């Protein structure tokens, strides 16, 4: 029986070591090519005229003057007269021309008449008197619920209670299924009663019904301590350094080559095929490197379809349109805001007994996300209600660990405030609640002990409010987090050439996570050969399909398919050479650059000699994940992490500085400790950035983003990060779980840990992220009476 399982720690020449990423040299030397760098002879530039209003109707478009301009090759209306536009920056007309300057001249020559409509961009707390939605659920409402990740049971209960005002057909159900709508929800739709839509003005507020569990009122009344507070995180933007976009050409009338900045090489062709009436098989999608995605680059965007149409109109010549920075901020995705008024209670030992939250937030026209509250901790008695606010701004897209960072800042903030009421160390409160911390409780316990050591938590933690004299106050905060991270569907063709070189073809991508490196590590580790012998061909949809890189699913998926491909290839090689070694294939092993009888270096061949026996035709096999026929499961789901922050707050200026952060993280079997650590360092830094600086600010008057650039949308710089320490959990209890993704989990906790550290330092809660000087000073002012400074 073939052994696909990950090797024992003793026989892992490369797995679990610290290995430099294989794409390091081309990136460090500027040779690495990105979509933005695609620059063939005859390349045309593409640009888009965008709507300047946050809500408007297109009345007329006149492109005649633009079309006549010298150098303009194609003009294509994207959203024509009669279209209602719901956010500023939305696409109206696309232009292709010989260069960008000419495109800009052409855009200025286009006349568009709009009827400006009223807009709404505020995600402030909804008025109290808003009723929960009671009328029938419309098609848009349903879609919003799904996109907002409203829990299935809530959707079903709403459908049963309220009925639906649309009549889905079989093809609609099929497409819902394709988009991942749960079959129970589809059943509920099938059985729903039809209720005609109510003719009432549309409210921006979509309020869910109150969800109650246990007996919250009784539990609050009996509790030893109750804490009430306001918490949340503002809208932030992915700010990918390589903006969204593509370069597209038509080598034939029904044939496209698409260079695109994407997290989803294998998934693009299917999305382009329909709008452009080209068979998906005739679309070649290519990408060597991508300058950041963070969840915002899975789909073909309207501007990509426009680029393809412009190229088609221009005789198939390549057209490249990468969004400018302003458009990147306005239309290419953001993380929804989430805010909540929370009441939480515990008994005298810190055991959590009751939770109540009224939450709200926005993620654009569709409403907002639904943060999983309370985060991680299954508090027995709960009452909660969420209001999604529809606002006129570009829609939210998945941002690393969707909804988790917001849920963490709300939940961990509330628990920290409760701990302060009990005069307890918040670490002790968490430890007192490990029985309700879900499947990763043991992991959190082990990690808290390590983080304590790394931070000197127990040694240095003080009660709320730094009592030392002076205006600079210091404090510490912590948070825990979780994520799934099971490996996605992944396929590879695995080839051993007669000259001993190894080639892997996989339709995947590397966002800078180190995916390329771990694929090569697994292949070389399995075959006992140096990494230099292995070539990875990726970034092309003509290679075997591999999933999109999102939700921390890549590491588990690509390493599992590679491991299975490598084992299958190795076993096929053993079959070929066993006779010449007078052994059965099962007796052979591939180690240290040799194929030999297990443990007997004298009865073997060098890797090169062994491969020479393959014959003239290379040996190619397939590897895939998941594969029930080839147990065991090589990937798994569910990780735990702990983070602690040490901050200083200047109570005169309101400026917060991070002195130190500690991250202790589990992700099952760590394939490459070096890139795994980098992923966690990166998450800490991105976390410091959204905790202290980042905020997408909308102008209530114009409805436009006020800071769509990198000088007023502030990112953390090298001088802002303090000392960072990362510890990866490895060894027994972790390794044997298999490979689990790491991109989302460590970015969940920094906001919560830093917010808690600030509260611990200054004695009052600064409710919302980012913790800007104005918010800190306002909290100090308001909280003066309660503050212990």
């Amino acid at each position, binding site marked *: 029986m073939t052994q696909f399982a990950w090797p024992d720690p003793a026989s892992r020449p490369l797995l679990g070591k*610290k290995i430099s*990423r294989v794409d390091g040299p081309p990136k*460090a030397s500027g040779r690495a090519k990105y979509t933005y760098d695609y620059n063939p002879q005859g390349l045309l530039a593409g640009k888009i005229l965008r709507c300047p209003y946050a809500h408007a109707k297109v009345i007329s478009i006149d492109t005649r003057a633009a079309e006549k301009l010298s150098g303009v090759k194609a003009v294509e209306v994207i959203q024509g007269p009669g279209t209602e536009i719901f956010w500023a920056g939305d696409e109206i007309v696309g232009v292709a021309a010989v260069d960008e300057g000419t495109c800009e001249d052409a855009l200025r020559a286009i006349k568009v008449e709009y009827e400006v409509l009223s807009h709404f961009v505020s995600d402030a707390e909804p008025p109290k008197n808003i009723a929960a939605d009671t009328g029938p659920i419309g098609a848009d409402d349903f879609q919003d619920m799904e996109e907002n990740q409203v829990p299935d049971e809530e959707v079903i209960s709403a459908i049963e209670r309220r009925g639906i005002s649309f009549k889905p057909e079989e093809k609609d159900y099929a497409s819902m299924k394709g988009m991942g709508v749960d079959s129970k929800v589809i059943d509920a739709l099938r059985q729903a009663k039809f209720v005609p839509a109510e003719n009432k003005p549309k409210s921006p507020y979509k309020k869910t019904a109150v969800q109650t569990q246990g007996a919250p009122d009784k539990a609050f009344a009996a509790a030893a301590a109750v804490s009430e507070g306001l918490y949340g995180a503002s809208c932030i933007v992915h700010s990918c350094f390589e903006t969204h976009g593509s370069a597209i050409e038509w080598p034939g009338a029904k044939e496209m080559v698409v260079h695109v900045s994407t997290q989803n090489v294998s998934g693009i062709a299917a999305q382009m095929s329909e709008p452009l009436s080209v068979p998906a098989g005739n679309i070649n999608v290519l990408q060597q490197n991508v300058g950041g995605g963070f969840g915002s680059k899975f789909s073909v965007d309207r501007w990509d379809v426009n680029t393809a149409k412009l190229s088609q109109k221009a005789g198939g010549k390549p057209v490249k349109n990468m969004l400018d920075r302003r458009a990147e901020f306005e239309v290419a995705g953001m993380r929804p805001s989430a805010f909540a008024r929370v009441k939480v209670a515990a008994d005298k030992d810190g055991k959590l007994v009751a939770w109540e939250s009224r939450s709200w937030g926005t993620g654009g026209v569709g409403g907002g996300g639904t943060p999983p509250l309370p985060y991680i901790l299954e508090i027995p008695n709960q009452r909660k209600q969420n209001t999604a606010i529809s606002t006129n701004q570009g829609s939210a897209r998945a941002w690393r660990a969707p909804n988790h960072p917001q849920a963490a800042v709300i939940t961990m903030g509330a628990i920290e405030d409760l701990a302060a009421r009990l005069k307890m160390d918040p670490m002790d409160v968490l430890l007192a609640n490990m029985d309700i911390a879900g499947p990763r409780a043991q992991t959190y316990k082990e990690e808290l002990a390590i983080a304590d050591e790394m931070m000197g938590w127990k040694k240095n933690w003080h009660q709320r409010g730094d009592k030392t004299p002076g205006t600079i106050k210091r404090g510490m905060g912590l948070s825990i987090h979780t994520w799934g991270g099971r490996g996605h569907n992944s396929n590879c063709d695995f080839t051993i050439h007669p000259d001993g070189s190894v080639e892997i073809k996989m339709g995947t991508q590397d*966002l800078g996570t180190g995916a390329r490196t771990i694929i090569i590590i697994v292949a070389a580790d399995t075959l006992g050969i140096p990494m230099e012998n292995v070539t990875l061909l990726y970034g092309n949809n003509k290679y075997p399909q591999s999933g999109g890189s999102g939700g921390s699913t890549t590491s588990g998926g690509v390493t599992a398919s590679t491991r299975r491909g490598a084992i299958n290839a190795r076993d096929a090689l053993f079959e070929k050479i066993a006779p010449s070694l007078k052994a059965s294939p099962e007796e052979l092993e591939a180690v240290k650059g040799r194929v030999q009888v297990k443990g007997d270096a004298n009865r073997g061949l060098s890797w090169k000699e062994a491969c020479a026996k393959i014959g003239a035709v290379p040996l190619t096999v397939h590897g895939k994940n998941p594969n029930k026929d080839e147990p065991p499961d090589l990937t798994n789901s569910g990780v735990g992490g702990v983070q602690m922050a040490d901050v200083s707050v200047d109570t005169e200026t309101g400026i917060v500085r991070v002195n130190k952060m500690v991250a202790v993280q589990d992700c099952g079997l760590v394939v490459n*400790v070096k890139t795994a650590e980098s992923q966690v*360092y990166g998450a800490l830094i991105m976390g410091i950035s959204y905790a202290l600086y980042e905020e997408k600010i909308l102008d209530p008057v114009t409805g436009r983003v006020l800071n769509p650039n990198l000088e007023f949308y502030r990112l953390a710089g090298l001088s802002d990060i303090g000392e960072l320490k990362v510890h990866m959990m490895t060894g027994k209890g972790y390794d044997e779980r298999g490979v689990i993704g790491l991109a989302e989990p460590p970015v969940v906790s920094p906001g919560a840990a830093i917010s808690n550290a600030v509260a611990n330092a200054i004695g009052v809660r600064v409710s919302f992220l980012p913790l800007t000087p104005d918010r800190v000073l306002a909290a100090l002012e308001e909280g003066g009476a309660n503050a212990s400074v």
Partner: protein
Amino acid sequence: MKDDDLRKPEAPSGVSRRDFMKISAVTAALPVVLGPKVVHAAGEDVPIQGPGKVAVTLNVNGKKLSAQLEPRVTLLDALRGPFDLTGAKRVCDRGACGACTVLLDTKPVYACSVLAIDAQNAKITTIEALAEAEKLSPVMQAFVEHDAQQCGFCTPGFVVATTCFLKQHPKPTADDIRRNLNGNYCRCGTYDGIRAVALLEQGGKQS
């Protein structure tokens, strides 16, 4: 340039504010010679370049590179487009992030904030010239060893900036680094590795 200057009455040349900013930038670099039309603006005689394409010759990485470019083309776009040197990246396109850092003579500049026609008298060095063929420079090697890069889009700018910084501060302190390498941003969060590169820590994180 104070805004006040722009409101002074000018020669009736139809020079808009935008054009004016371009030509005023030119004066420092170009003597007034025969050729372009000359206008009197802000108390000086200045040649008008454009608005059509003009011949531009740049000294890049020791080579003379020429192209017909509109005066509005930035150094960054000239390098990345006609000269196909794509190591410097266009990220913010307005002098905030440093991803387009190149050297003008020995000074690191944001190539997105320099016009190509203004860079004609300088020696321009891009990331491509910091490494010989496949061989990495010591700073690049340190970026690899310390894993000071993820998506890599900000990396060339950071490598140019760090190379310059280490020339100016051969034995940098942590404070030097904080003060001097704050002109480049990274979105993936690679500063910890970059700090180690700049501190000349040996051996990277390699075990």
